[in-house]
């Protein structure tokens, strides 16, 4: 049995995090701007309305959802773009050739994804918070959902990146799976307003629990049962991380 390659894992984590810090405009400033645009649009579309069933104003409802959505998308983008760029530029062979095990690689990639999600999330929080009277009511909930959500999305990004052969494949995963699931997860509306059929469909959308739980950390209320949601999210996190580790280990779509 080999010792854990601490220096190797740390180096890979640095590589993966410097990559997004190097292109800050794309990775941090752009998502912040997008979130502000959403906020302006919905602010004037919805006015001072309250969210039905939740007894909270629309702004306070929208902001945590927007932050979480950006965090999830950025965690996914970090691992998926690294994988696809690596495959297309053929740089992933260096990772395969290096003595970094599957577990070490997954730890480094996911840590960088979580870091990017939290950097983007913190920037959004600082930018959007002045527009509202939100408070970090349950920090542990915010952290739990933030970390689990980033781990799930980072793992999905790795798997999507391993599966994709081209940028087009990757865009397809992003546009046809990730975007619909995030947009239909109750960021912009309370799920209790949906017709019963769509509510039951929604119960199977993992993003709904992530966003609802994260928002719960700010507004102390939500559409799902907190305990049940945490259980489901924790289980999904473990499943996603183990799947990405296993696929890396067998060299799925990476090795011939």
């Amino acid at each position, binding site marked *: 049995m*080999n010792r854990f*390659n601490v220096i190797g894992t740390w180096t*890979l984590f640095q590589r993966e995090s410097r990559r997004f810090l190097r292109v800050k405009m794309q990775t941090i400033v752009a998502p912040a701007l997008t979130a502000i645009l959403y906020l302006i649009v919905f602010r004037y579309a919805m006015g001072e309305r309250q969210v039905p069933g939740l007894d909270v104003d629309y702004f306070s409802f929208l902001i945590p959802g927007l932050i979480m959505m950006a965090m999830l998308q950025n965690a996914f983008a970090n691992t998926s773009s690294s994988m696809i760029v690596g495959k297309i530029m*053929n740089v992933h062979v260096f990772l395969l*050739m290096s*003595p970094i*095990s599957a577990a070490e690689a997954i730890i480094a990639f996911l840590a960088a994804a979580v870091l990017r999600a939290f950097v983007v999330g913190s920037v959004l929080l600082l930018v959007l918070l002045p527009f509202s009277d939100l408070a970090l009511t349950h920090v542990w909930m915010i952290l739990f959902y933030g970390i689990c959500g980033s781990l799930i999305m980072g793992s999905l990004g790795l798997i999507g990146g391993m599966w994709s052969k081209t940028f087009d494949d990757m865009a397809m995963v992003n546009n046809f799976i990730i975007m619909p699931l995030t947009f239909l997860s109750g960021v912009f509306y309370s799920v209790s307003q949906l017709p019963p059929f769509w509510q039951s469909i929604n119960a199977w959308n993992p993003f709904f629990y992530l966003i609802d739980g994260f928002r719960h950390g700010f507004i102390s209320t939500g559409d799902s049962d907190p305990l049940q949601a945490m259980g489901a999210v924790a289980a999904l996190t473990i499943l996603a991380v183990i799947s990405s580790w296993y696929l890396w280990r067998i*060299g799925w779509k990476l090795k011939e």
Partner: protein
Amino acid sequence: MNALEINNVSKIYGNGKVALQDISLTVPEGSFFALLGPNGAGKSTLINILADTVNASSGNVSLLGHDLFLERAWCKRRMGVVPQEIAFDPFFSPREILKFSRGMYGEKADDHWVDELLERLELAEHAHKVTRQLSGGMRRRLLVAQALVHRPKLVILDEPTAGVDVELRKRLWDFMRELNAAGTTILLTTHYLEEAEELCDQVAIIDQGKLITSCPMKTLMGDVASSSLCLSYDEPLQLSDEDTIVLAAFSPRVHDNQLCLTLNKQGTHSDFDAVYQAAKQQLGAPVDVNIRQEDLEDVFLRLTGDPS
């Protein structure tokens, strides 16, 4: 001890293509080893199996006495591979790439060695450029630096000099020779057979996934390489049936006014005389005579039957 012992390695790709068929060869520690073969012979597949970017279908490999497939991390730390395809991370500079690469092999930073590599591979001036700005030759040298940055015991180079000009190629080989003299085992593939013959003390030739030969370079050139006696006449030659029969043992080849006859192995005096006399008797005295010794390229072409 052997740097590498490759035992019965085969590779059949998913589409049924057999890339390697039961290859067994040994790379002695400290050797400078040439792995030769025509395009598509399976050299890169074999190297990719060693590098862990392709899975072998069967067989096993030991590196410095350790099982390559079971003790991957241990083995990987002791080998550096220069892949054939140029690959570079567009986000980082050569210096950063070398630092990351060293770190990924679990080694603490060593700026001194990174500087020396940049210097030796003539990348020092470009150390801070983004890799996108590097020329093809520079990128290939960066790959070499990357393979050496964790000071491996075994260096594997897959066509390291493709697209590198003569001067730089010479300096690159000088550097490899120095590393080899300091105890590093070097395994390379190259299309420059003249260079392989000059540099390497061991050679293996594979063709269509099969091993043709694997032996010390001296043995190959001594036992397998033959030489020819070429006699020139002042007018074009036409061998009669009788000439052909008499000279048959020396496999006569006629090109215009020249007749070439194969000498046995490294032509001995008696052999030379017998061939010369036989030719003189049949065709008269030539105006010019020379001996052509087969080089590695000739042997290679003969063994692989590659018409090119």
